[in-house]
């Protein structure tokens, strides 16, 4: 087995709405922050993986280097739905793990419009949205949540509690889009988008970026960066295997279960060893499913888990202490690296008011429909 690989610099910008800026410009800001975090220069970086979805054909990585330093290094532009940022990170990790490079960067950036995602369809004939059901994301994830309701009786109120929790967490995170408490009545009473997902149970479309500098153990030691380094214990990626209802119902569960199994095996640990999780709460319904998919509780126990506060800050396994996609925001290509930033910050003991005390190991999870699931397990050095 090759030597361990580390995050030696990582940061994100505060998520928000920056319509006057460009995607490469957003990427550049977090790339510089991550370099500063490691005390390095762009000239030190040997290769770059750049994640972005909205302008996947527009060479965002190279255009970012045109803003911060054109050093002639290899650049790979990555697109993998909502797993885009995590996939860029994973590919950068793989290059170091393989011994091709020993100091590389992964960056993720996105600029989002407001409004509904999905349901485009297009093609010949007539529009199918609202005729053959709904392809809009809030409805797709409502149906995924309802699969859990049908099996285990999970209620609208239990789904809504996820949003109450994550919005509460975001009040402690200055880099989240929102810092606003949303009591249960407010979540359940906000505009119904696609039952059981209300507006406050849908992730926020924001602009943002995040970046990480990744190094081999030898390089990290040579640079004197081991003090704040975070060990990448596992990096797993899965696509969706065949499922009976595939043609009409994206399956977000099975590929998460495949990826997490691989991640636990790589890390040589289990769910009980994980001190915090940043998972893909694109909708409140989704978070409930992933408690079970990631093994944080047994099948059918996720409703109880949210009821008992086990996933709130201070609970058994705090989930989305950053505020999650629901309140921190979800700039698609940046989300995966922002999750890794959050977990790394806790492992470094630098998370301030939202610090998970004594955090030694954490997990990040993203899933993009289509589907791609990326999971990382990170460990305090």
């Amino acid at each position, binding site marked *: 087995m090759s030597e361990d690989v580390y995050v030696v610099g990582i940061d994100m910008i505060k998520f928000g709405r920056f319509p006057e800026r460009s995607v490469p410009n957003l990427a550049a800001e977090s790339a510089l922050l991550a370099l500063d975090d490691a005390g390095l220069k762009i000239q030190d970086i040997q290769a770059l993986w750049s994640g972005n979805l909205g302008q996947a054909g527009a060479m965002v990585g190279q255009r970012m280097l045109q803003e911060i330093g054109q050093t002639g290094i290899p650049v790979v532009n990555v697109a993998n739905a909502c797993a885009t940022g995590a996939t860029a990170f994973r590919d950068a990790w793989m290059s170091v793990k393989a011994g091709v490079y020993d100091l590389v960067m992964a960056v993720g950036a996105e600029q989002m419009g407001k409004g509904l995602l999905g349901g485009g369809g297009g093609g010949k004939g*007539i529009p199918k949205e*609202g*005729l053959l*059901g709904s392809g809009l994301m809030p409805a797709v994830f409502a*149906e995924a949540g309802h699969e859990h309701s*049908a099996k285990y009786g999970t209620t609208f109120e239990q789904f809504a509690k996820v949003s109450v929790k994550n919005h509460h967490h975001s009040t402690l995170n200055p880099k989240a889009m929102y810092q606003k408490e949303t009591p249960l009545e407010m979540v359940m009473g906000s505009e119904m988008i696609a039952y059981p997902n209300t507006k406050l149970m849908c992730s926020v479309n924001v602009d943002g970026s995040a970046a990480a500098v990744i190094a081999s153990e030898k390089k990290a030691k040579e640079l004197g960066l081991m003090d704040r380094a975070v060990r990448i214990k596992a990096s797993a990626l899965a696509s969706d295997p065949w499922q009976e209802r*595939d043609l009409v119902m994206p399956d977000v569960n099975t590929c998460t279960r495949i990826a997490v199994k691989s991640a636990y095996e790589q890390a040589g640990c289990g769910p009980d060893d994980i001190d915090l999780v940043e998972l893909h709460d694109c909708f409140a319904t989704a978070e409930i499913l992933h408690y079970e998919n990631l093994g944080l509780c047994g099948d059918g126990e996720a409703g109880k888990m949210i009821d008992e506060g086990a996933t709130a800050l201070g609970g058994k396994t705090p989930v989305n202490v950053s505020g999650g996609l629901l309140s921190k925001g979800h700039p698609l290509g940046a989300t995966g690296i922002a999750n890794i930033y959050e977990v790394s910050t806790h492992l470094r003991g630098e998370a301030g008011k939202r610090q998970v005390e004594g955090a030694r190991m954490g997990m990040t999870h993203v899933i993009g429909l289509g589907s791609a699931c990326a999971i990382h397990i990170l460990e305090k050095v």
Partner: protein
Amino acid sequence: MAEEAQPLPVVSYLKLPENGDPYLEGQKCGSCGSIFLGEREVCSKCGTRGSFDAVKLSNQGKLYVYSIVHRSFPGIEVPYVSAIVDLDGGGTVKGNLIGIDPDPEKIQFGMPVEVVYQDALGRKDREGNSYISYFFQPANG
């Protein structure tokens, strides 16, 4: 005078026979028995090539899951119930559930539904063709 154009099927797997009732058609893999919607060459479950038989899908099924959509694109009437239905004998399809209040109190997981065929909510394509679509409605005994 031009002959009045016949309505077209909303998707390729909705069949409108000249003599007979409309139905949904599945493509069944001869090797593993998986049912797909629309013609294809290779089975994505088992990888077998060119071994599909067209099968008539049932008009009876059970509601698997649903969502009640209250906000959609401009011009699309809300609310509507997006439903995923497991058809008796195989095949899962997605469509609008009609003939029921869009109210979670009224909609039950597993409830029996039937497939009905109607005009596609008045939607026409650029050439002015009208379409026949399929819908689900509660099957009340």
